[in-house]
């Protein structure tokens, strides 16, 4: 009923290939954008900014980076956390070496470093596949975290061994560090994440995306039809690591404010991988749905008992939370193994046909 496509005629190929061939999709996206750009900033509290809005966007971006590599190009990677770390440390060094640099430029530039590192660790992908490649990227994870600990130059020989985000100004407004307001940081994160999302959507729909998908589905066949596998795999590593690096820089500069090396250890990689898998591999929207489930839901569940006036011990709430989120993950994967994005696709198709199921 709501999704009725009757009467929406496509009179040209161009319109049939548009981003939103169905008008309701565009409308829905518009509503979400209005929420993200206007309604949330106007109504959100400091708590909501810091624990829901900003982290969900950043994790979604990191998952999007991983999704390009794993979901579109089919190269399994367990090094996401470390590549985020490269972005964060690169941004920190850029800011401290060139204090006059615009913070947003620094964040976007720091992705270049992680892209470089990503390509380097992606070289084994030319020879090995699947789980074996995952082990090779695991090496990146261990090596890079070790490097963040041992190479004191990276954290400017700080006594605490951690990086601290300085107060950075842009046009007279603090954008990072303790003096920055959550609202400013949210808008910067939102702008960068939106920009990256548009780029990713177009990249994956275009020629490059098709090359990646061909590589993923069957690399020998792809090679036979003239795809250069080396170029295809390495560009996937580069683009993916670039996005992950930017996410890492945002992670530390726009949200955490400080970072120790072990922050970028394996648990972070797994977290991002879970977001990508539960959201749906090979989908852009899935990353957001996954991030909402994995990052946002526990926070919301944590405040429910208090809001209901129930007196439950904080530790008990935490235990319950872990159980509920775990159960939900299993539930969603059982009803739709291809992730939340596939679930939405299914619901949407049913809605278009509704009320006639066949």
């Amino acid at each position, binding site marked *: 009923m709501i999704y009725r496509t009757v009467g929406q005629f496509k009179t040209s190929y161009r319109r049939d290939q548009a981003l939103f061939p169905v008008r309701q999709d565009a409308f829905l996206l518009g509503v979400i954008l209005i929420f993200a750009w206007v309604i949330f900033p106007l109504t959100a509290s400091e708590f909501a900014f810091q624990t829901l809005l900003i982290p969900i966007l950043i994790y979604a971006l990191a998952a999007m980076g991983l999704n390009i590599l794993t979901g579109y190009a089919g190269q399994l990677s367990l090094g996401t956390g470390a590549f985020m770390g490269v972005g964060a440390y690169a941004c920190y060094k850029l800011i401290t070496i060139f204090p006059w640099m615009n913070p947003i430029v620094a964040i976007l530039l720091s992705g270049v470093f992680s892209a470089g590192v990503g390509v380097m660790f992606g070289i084994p992908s030319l020879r090995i596949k699947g789980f074996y490649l995952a082990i090779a990227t695991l090496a990146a994870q261990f090596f890079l975290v070790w490097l963040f600990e041992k190479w004191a130059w990276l954290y400017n020989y700080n006594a605490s061994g951690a990086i601290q985000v300085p107060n950075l100004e842009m046009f007279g407004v603090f954008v990072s560090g303790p003096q920055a307001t959550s609202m400013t940081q949210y808008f910067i994160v939102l702008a960068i994440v939106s920009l990256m999302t548009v780029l990713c959507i177009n990249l994956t729909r275009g020629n490059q995306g098709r090359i990646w998908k061909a590589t993923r589905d069957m690399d020998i066949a792809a090679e036979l039809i003239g795809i250069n596998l080396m170029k295809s795999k390495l560009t996937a590593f580069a683009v993916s690591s670039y996005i992950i690096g930017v996410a890492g820089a945002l992670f530390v500069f726009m949200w955490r404010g*400080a970072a120790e090396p072990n922050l970028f250890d394996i648990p972070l990689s797994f977290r991002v991988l879970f977001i990508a898998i539960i959201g749906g591999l090979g989908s852009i929207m899935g990353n957001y749905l996954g991030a909402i489930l994995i990052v946002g839901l526990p926070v919301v569940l944590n405040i429910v008992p208090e809001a209901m006036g129930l007196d439950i011990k904080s530790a008990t709430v935490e235990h319950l939370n872990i159980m509920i989120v775990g159960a939900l993950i299993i539930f969603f994967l059982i009803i739709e193994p291809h992730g939340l994005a596939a679930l939405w696709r299914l619901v949407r198709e049913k809605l278009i046909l509704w009320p006639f199921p066949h």
Partner: protein
Amino acid sequence: MRYWKTLTAAAVIASLGGAALAEEIYVPNLSYRTGPFAATGIPLMNGQKDYFEMLNARDGGIGGVKIAFEECETGYSTEKGVECYEKTKGNAVITQPWSTGITLQVLPKTNVDEIPLLANGYGFSPMADGKTFQWAFNAPAGYWDAASMLVSYIDGQGGIAGKKIAFLHLDHPYGKEPIPLFEKKAAELGFEFLPIPVGLKEMQNQSAQWLQIRRERPDYVLMWGWGAMNAGAITEAVKTKFDMSKFIGVWWSGHDADLALVGDAGKGYKSISWSFPNADAGVMADIKTHVVDAGKSLSNPEEMSGVFYGRGLVMSMILAEGIAAAQAEYGTGVITPAQLRWGLENLNITEARLAELGMEGMVPPFSTSCANHTGHSGGWILEWDGSKFVKASDHIMPDTSDYAELIAEKAAEYASANAPWPVNESCDAMN
């Protein structure tokens, strides 16, 4: 529809409850009763909680105002820590961050949010400089205090010159912090200093480190360990038959449960500590009547006789004394965070005051000022006698002149890296 009504009703009740809270002082604690470090966290959290429960039951709070002591569970995760900080900071008079990671995260925000940060015996040693770190406290002692006390203790045991000292530490900001001071003292006093890092991933399997220790044959092994690393090191030391009396840990490496694993074999193991459990103290009797017998305690007798539970009590006592000092100064019951900061800057815990509180011998006397946010209480060497820790030395004091410069230098570095960083100009006391 009915659900919405119930929900609205619940919300209304909750908001009314919020209004009734006004006559309380809200003291949150970012606890970790879950996660990988829960074993060490639980006794500390229980001690902290029971002390405030006891004050509420016995005296009706502090200065007649009830203390709303509430835990927010972090599981020692920095991410959850930030969530808890944002959740509690609205009404809180204090932040007790409970992990180095969360401390580093919250520290820069203290100047903006103006809520004191209390990290008893952990956190960032330069926080001792109260002029720079206006809102941060790590009373009663920091890690450089511990390093200084250990050096003077070993020196008192037949001279440190010419000895070889191995430093087994967690390869993490926490473990690395005392190294500059040890290196400085090694050059001055002529002992050989050998740092041996233990990575976060090798905490439970330290065979490589202990092989190195066996090869190097150090006279002493000092340990800055946490969580699983302590038990790992102690069992490994027993296995390699290292002389336990030459093995000394920092205060976070003196957990009864870690030593109970090896029992008699751990006899002689030492730990420097600024707290000591005194089962005969008045405060323990009060907790027994008002908290344990009332069924409000989450602890058990075995845990309550341990070092970490006693330390939890001392931590809450320090905070409670700060609140009381602030109430007396400003003549008000419900204090603000800024007033509590004054209270914590003007702590004066004397022997007489400890006797009044019923905490004789549980912490050395100390005092703070606006320039000195640590207090440098000194401490005791505790020794494991096979079943519990006993005091094995007199009160040892750190030589603060050794690292006053280091504190000033690192504090200035921090302030300049975080510019604009307001410092307390009105404070003219010396550190």
